[in-house]
């Protein structure tokens, strides 16, 4: 209705909206409500092409586009435009986009065949990080080139995307993407980070650490190379398969047409022939699926290792902060008592007579077999909860009293993958 009001009446609304938008533009990238560890989404020509994991380590995304790249945009998980680049029709362009703390280096190359964009997430540098970068350059001269996901056909590309993620989201990004520019950057000097008067033993220790790091890195590169070979093989298989599929389809068509022409021919023969062709197709397909499966397992392995590293990091962070939170811990005994009280009393009573205005709500959760302690902790953290006693396979978890109906909350919890069962009384 108000859409057709007289322009005069709507003027304040228009002006208010205009002012709001100007504020939005002024605030820019600072508007994001996302933390530094959230992923950064990469858009090419207004199309989303992937994401960079901003979880404190270097990460790379590289994509080959069949048409020239006109623009590259970086956005946070909540959609705020963090930075971007418009690119020339032909040639090379690169720039470093500063985020809150970290930076992303964008490199775009347009040719007549299309464009290639690579985005490298660079976390805020520290000593350890700089040393790693420097040493990475010294050790590995034979950096592997990433396999680009050029091709056609929905399924092939969908699978290729997963594999691309395995290949590209590596921890040694600067080396992997080094191919777009000749390595003319001067090597940062590691010694600059070591105090002049450092004792010799310290230097030796650091040296030893760097050597160990280099060994780890070499191993990782080997893994990546193996995976690249796997992917190349998979692509060959898929190409073979799609050719096979096409020929099967055309064979079936021919057979069907012939059948149409001579209706007297037995349907049986056609069915048999189709079955034979389809079976042949199926076995090739199964082989392909097995290959995909094994690659997925490798991928899982990698991401598990990564999660482990992240957990270690979180653990360290916790230890660091906990020393500063000793005062707040004085409230903990009270909370523990509360858990005990709820364990002993039937839950109805505990509910009816709250001890304090907003007592935490106690749940008993049983987790699926094989669930790691780390993922349980993560889940509890996500629930904004707190672990209590553990008894006979049931873990007590205190959560903030939900505003939603209890059944709905329990349903939601039950749908979590790692949760086997949940109950509110012991």
């Amino acid at each position, binding site marked *: 209705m108000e859409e057709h009001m007289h322009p005069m009446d709507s003027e304040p609304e228009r002006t208010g909206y205009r002012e709001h938008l100007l504020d939005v533009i002024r605030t820019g990238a600072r508007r994001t409500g996302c933390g530094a560890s959230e992923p950064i989404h990469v858009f090419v020509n207004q199309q989303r092409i992937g994401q960079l994991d901003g979880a404190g380590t270097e990460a790379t995304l590289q994509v080959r586009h069949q048409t020239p790249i006109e623009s590259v945009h970086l956005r946070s998980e909540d959609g705020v*435009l963090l930075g*971007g680049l418009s690119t020339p029709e032909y040639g090379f362009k690169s720039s470093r986009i500063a985020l809150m703390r970290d930076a992303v280096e964008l490199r775009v190359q347009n040719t007549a065949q299309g464009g290639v964009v690579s985005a490298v997430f660079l976390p805020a540098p520290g000593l350890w990080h700089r040393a790693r970068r420097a040493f990475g350059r010294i050790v590995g001269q034979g950096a592997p080139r990433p396999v680009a996901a050029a091709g056609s056909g*929905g399924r092939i590309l969908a699978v290729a995307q997963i594999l691309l993620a395995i290949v590209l989201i590596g921890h040694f990004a600067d080396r992997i993407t080094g191919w777009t520019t000749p390595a003319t950057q001067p090597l940062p000097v590691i010694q600059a980070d070591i105090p002049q008067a450092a004792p010799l033993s310290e230097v030796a220790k650091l040296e030893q650490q760097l050597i160990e790091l280099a060994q780890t890195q070499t191993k990782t590169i080997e893994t990546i190379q193996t995976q690249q070979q796997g992917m190349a093989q998979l692509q060959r298989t898929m190409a073979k398969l799609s050719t096979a599929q096409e020929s099967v389809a055309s064979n079936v068509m021919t057979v069907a047409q012939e059948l149409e022409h001579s209706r007297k021919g037995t349907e049986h023969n056609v069915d048999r022939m189709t079955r034979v062709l389809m079976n042949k197709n199926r076995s090739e397909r199964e082989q392909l699926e097995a290959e995909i499966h094994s690659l997925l397992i490798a991928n899982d392995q990698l991401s598990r290792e990564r999660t482990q590293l992240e957990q270690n990091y979180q653990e360290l962070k916790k230890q660091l902060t906990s020393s500063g939170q000793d005062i707040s811990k004085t409230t903990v005994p009270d909370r523990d008592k509360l858990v005990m009280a709820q364990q002993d009393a039937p839950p109805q009573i505990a509910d009816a007579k709250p001890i304090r205005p907003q007592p935490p709500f106690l749940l008993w959760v049983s987790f699926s077999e094989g669930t790691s302690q780390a993922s349980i902790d993560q889940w509890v953290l996500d629930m904004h909860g707190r672990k209590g006693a553990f008894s006979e396979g049931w873990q007590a978890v205190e959560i903030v009293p939900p505003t939603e109906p209890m059944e709905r909350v329990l349903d939601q919890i039950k749908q979590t993958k790692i949760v086997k069962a949940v109950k509110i009384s012991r």
Partner: protein
Amino acid sequence: MSGIGSPSMLNRDRTILDRSEAIARIEDVAATAEDFDRIVSQSLPLLLDRTVGYIKRFLRDTGQWSEDVAHEKFVLRWGAEYLEQFLVSGRFEVPCRPLFLLDSMVAKQHSRPEPFCYHPDLLTPLGRFLDGLVGRAAVSRDALIALYHHCYGLGPGQVIATLRLNGSESPRIYKNFQRWRDSGWKRTLEDIGLTAPDLQGLTEQCHQQRRRFNGEAERMLRFVQAHYRKSEPDHYPCLSRHQWEDMFLQGYGIEYRIWHLALCLNCLQTAWDLGFAGASAIEKPRVALQFQP
């Protein structure tokens, strides 16, 4: 700097003076990125009005313009979008003349077949709600996940079950929901210019004639989804039932599922029909708009 400004100018001419000074500045050359930032930040209102003027002209020239507040808001919304992009990428184009750089960027946008999602029906409050929300989802993962809630009434657990996501994806879905409720929803409403009375009206209409209302919403939603699906990667087309089944069983294509199914009602229903979400007893997803986060 221009020579137009003179200290003896009267105060009432101050605005005009500021305006012409600003024009003179942005017509000048920005030699460095810092120059660019400074020049542009001093003339934002002017640049916004200029961009809005171009979009208006585009709509007029293509026979899509009318004089009402919905159209005014539409051009403002897109003007701001263009300007934001100009701000982040223009600073890498130095040395340049910012004003003409903006002109060329707008011209480039308007040379595309469909620079924005336009349909007269989308200028009603319902249309603006859907266009704004789905448009936001094309650039924001939080908004994308929130679409499952606002369009079909699915909660985080149901999203996870319907898309058959694994344990490691679940926390992120909860986080997306949380951030959307905390800030994303309110900010998106403000950014698309949907007012509290607009929202109130929609809630009442939905309440009075739920079926008819959601039927109308579905028709518009399909139109809007088809437009914004262009923001997906090239290789995320609609899949057949068999292909979805394969993907769900093999466990690949997590991103594919999340992005495509949020933006495609048909595929979402196809995927639901496979029965993988059955254990959690979720009803088949159909359009049931939610006006609260």
